[in-house]
């Protein structure tokens, strides 16, 4: 999939004040039946956005017109549970490019990075401030400066964040891991043959 490049992003943010959000909430299993990557945004947080009668849940933040933007700010341990990459696709498809939290589940983090979505890890303290500020003043722009690895709340604190240099370059250039792995194909072939001598295939 062609990914949009991500470098510096200035956007308002949507605050989602919940911890341990699992991928079953991000995109419930019954919506995983598509065989393409597109269109999952429609069912992002489906069971929180819509009630049993398919009516929008008024007080859920994504239904609140006060909040919008390309950044989702949320509680720790975001993306735990199932490995479904559909969760990252849904968030991206909905229009988010960055998710800010103090802590991401491992598989989700990889999936996000593989899809041009930045899982941005900040300190607990920064997260708290960010959530408070965005909730109270939804028009506050947040700047994510990926090249310099700095996230700043306009008129508020800023913080340096960590990201693997390879993954950072991938996001900035919009390239994916397969291109790199394919360049190793001959070495891998040799490795495979050597493995088969130690552990023969059935």
């Amino acid at each position, binding site marked *: 999939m062609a990914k949009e490049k991500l470098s510096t992003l200035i956007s308002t943010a949507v605050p989602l004040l919940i911890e341990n959000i*699992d991928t079953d909430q991000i995109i419930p299993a019954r919506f995983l039946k598509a065989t393409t990557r597109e269109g999952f945004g429609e069912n992002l947080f489906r069971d929180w956005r819509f009630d049993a009668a398919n009516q929008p849940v008024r007080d859920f933040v994504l239904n609140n017109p006060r909040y919008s933007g390309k950044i989702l700010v949320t509680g720790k341990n975001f993306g735990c549970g199932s490995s479904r990459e559909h969760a990252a696709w849904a968030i991206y498809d909905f229009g988010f490019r960055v998710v800010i939290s103090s802590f991401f589940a491992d598989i989700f983090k990889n999936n996000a990075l593989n899809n041009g979505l930045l899982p941005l890890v900040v300190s607990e303290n920064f997260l708290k401030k960010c959530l408070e500020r965005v909730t109270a003043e939804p028009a506050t722009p947040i700047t994510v400066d990926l090249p310099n690895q700095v996230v700043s709340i306009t008129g508020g604190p800023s913080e340096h964040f960590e990201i693997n240099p390879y993954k950072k370059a991938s996001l900035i250039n919009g390239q994916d891991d397969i291109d*790199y792995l394919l360049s190793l194909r001959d070495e891998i072939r040799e490795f495979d043959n050597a493995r088969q001598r130690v552990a023969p295939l059935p």
Partner: protein
Amino acid sequence: MEPKTLFDKIWDAHVVKRADGFPHALFIDRHFIHEVTSPQAFDGLRARGIPVFNTRRTTATADHNVPTKDQHLPIREALSRHQVETLRKNCKEFGVDLYDLGHPYQGIVHIIGPELGLTLPGMTIVCGDSHTSTHGAFGNIAFGIGTSEVEQVLATQCVLQHKPKTMRIEINGQLGRGVVSKDIILYIISKISSSGATGYFVEYAGEAIRGLSMEARMTVCNMSIEMGARGGLIAPDQTTFDYIRGRKFAPQGQAFEQAVETWKALITDPGARYDKVLTFDAADIGPMITYGTNPGMGMCVTDRIPTAKELASLGDTTSFTNSLEYMGLAPGDFLLGKPVDYVFIGSCTNARIEDLRQVARLVKGKKRAESVEVWVVPGSKQVEAQARKEGLDKIFEEAGFELRSPGCSACLGMNEDKVPPGKYCISTSNRNFEGRQGPRSRTFLASPLSAAAAAITGKVTDIRTWMEN
């Protein structure tokens, strides 16, 4: 030579390339795929015009979406049918072995790998499914990946990965009566929380783990992901070798004996360093049950749910309150005696033949409570066939349990098996997330023994006292 952990030994033996600033290119010995997380990966290969790197290292099955009734008929639900048909088409086009519906080897991907001898010690194993950790019970590195990574493995037989940290979890001593491997893992998660092992790969050790059968070890490793770990493994031993011997795709005869000799070296060297070590006493573990909407919210079945005040020290209480509200429970409540509506015995955690035998032994000659519906969904066609051969189907039938055909079923409710809104289900699966078993369903995770007891009594039951009656 520096002493190494088992994890490090296997990992290091599979790194094809370690370039500065890059994640490791890790070679994958065995790749499992299923219908839900593979279609977009095959599309990627098609778009690039490349074949599967080594078809002999990939095995496919249909499990997540499949009906558990009338499996011989075309799948009724159009989207599910389309997904299974897409898998069929892709496997054919790319030359991948598929255990399709109706095949005697079909079943939940994490159940069929071990039972076919495709899962072996010392391997690296991946699947586009978080519970790939199950396979680690054989002493290998097995972890779940996303669809982009499925595409990487299909295209290059490698994934790009950062090496995780290592954690050792030791369970010393012996388990009490009525306490089984599911209780061990629910207990650990309740102690360290659903994110307590994020960033780590876990090695389970200690007397209580050594004493477990292979199937029970798989239950423990299966739920490693529920504490945030990428995977969990257990060093192989005689129990492992005995289980593997004679399995369909395992090395046979002389080759098997040779393999066992190499597998014996798969242990952590004395003095090897882990990034973290946790120790628990088996005697402290009772029959467990979860009360909330993440697997860390578990307790001994005779305990009461903590109050918000007791939890205040942990910081966040909003999620806790929301979770209890969803479950229709109150802080400080006891679950013992709470009526349940559904009992689900199934999933890659607890749907192997031993699980079904345990349930059958407990319910033989008894009848389910009228108020509950009981689904027994075997993990694979082979499990189902074995259960019928042993007459377990008769025992279930007499008890009023329905023995269905294999698949993921109500573990995630992607097919028609859904727990209705607001209903309580005691389930042997691995996740109690909101809506996991169907929109607004409520899940109590427990062992097959506890689930069986609840099926008969119609309520949450302490298996220890119940067994005495």
